[in-house]
């Protein structure tokens, strides 16, 4: 069974440029997450989808970040314009459950962003 797939793995862009990350969750997983991981820190939730609905986007900086999961399967996270402080790893994850399920969350390999 394929795991969570993310692309690109690595991206270097100049500040003020846009960037987009794509994620395909494990087949059948209803819940999709985007996490931000800064160097030396644990991941922090940016947004959580249940099917195509963003049920928690309270931590997403909406002035420059946007996300979509139009058909409830794959998802795209966009940053426009990128700032130097956005340099981090962007992790996508998925889980099979909804609500208070406590199901294990499975992660992709992450997209490493460097803004110069």
């Amino acid at each position: 069974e394929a795991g969570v797939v993310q692309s690109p793995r690595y991206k270097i862009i100049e500040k003020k440029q846009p960037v987009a990350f794509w994620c395909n969750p494990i087949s059948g997983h209803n819940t999709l997450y985007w996490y931000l991981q800064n160097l030396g820190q644990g991941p922090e939730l940016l947004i959580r989808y249940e099917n195509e609905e963003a049920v928690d986007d309270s931590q997403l900086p909406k002035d420059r970040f946007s996300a979509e999961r139009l058909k409830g399967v794959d998802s795209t996270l966009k940053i426009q314009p990128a700032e130097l402080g956005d340099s981090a790893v962007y992790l996508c994850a998925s889980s099979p459950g909804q609500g208070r399920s406590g199901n294990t969350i499975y992660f992709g390999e992450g997209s490493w962003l460097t803004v110069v």
Partner: protein
Amino acid sequence: AQTVTQSQPEMSVQEAETVTLSCTYDTSENNYYLFWYKQPPSRQMILVIRQEAYKQQNATENRFSVNFQKAAKSFSLKISDSQLGDTAMYFCAFISFQGGSEKLVFGKGMKLTVNP
């Protein structure tokens, strides 16, 4: 606030020895789930072990076991017969349901090095 604390930023152990990684957490929830994730240099978060808070029995997965002390809000990971491949960052995490949002909250992580 839902928090996870990993007080040891870094540890090293000799191959074949046993090591214990500590973790404490704070939550007002009575039912929750606890996890240990491993993150090698590739950056992919890999589930090591999962514990359901309502279960008193400590979870075990091969060489990995936990000591779950619910009253003390402590969740330590024991790695027996350490192997070189265990070298990685280890993150303690729990799923919080506070405010109706299911969120995986991570500690800052601990770097484990297994020496030959």
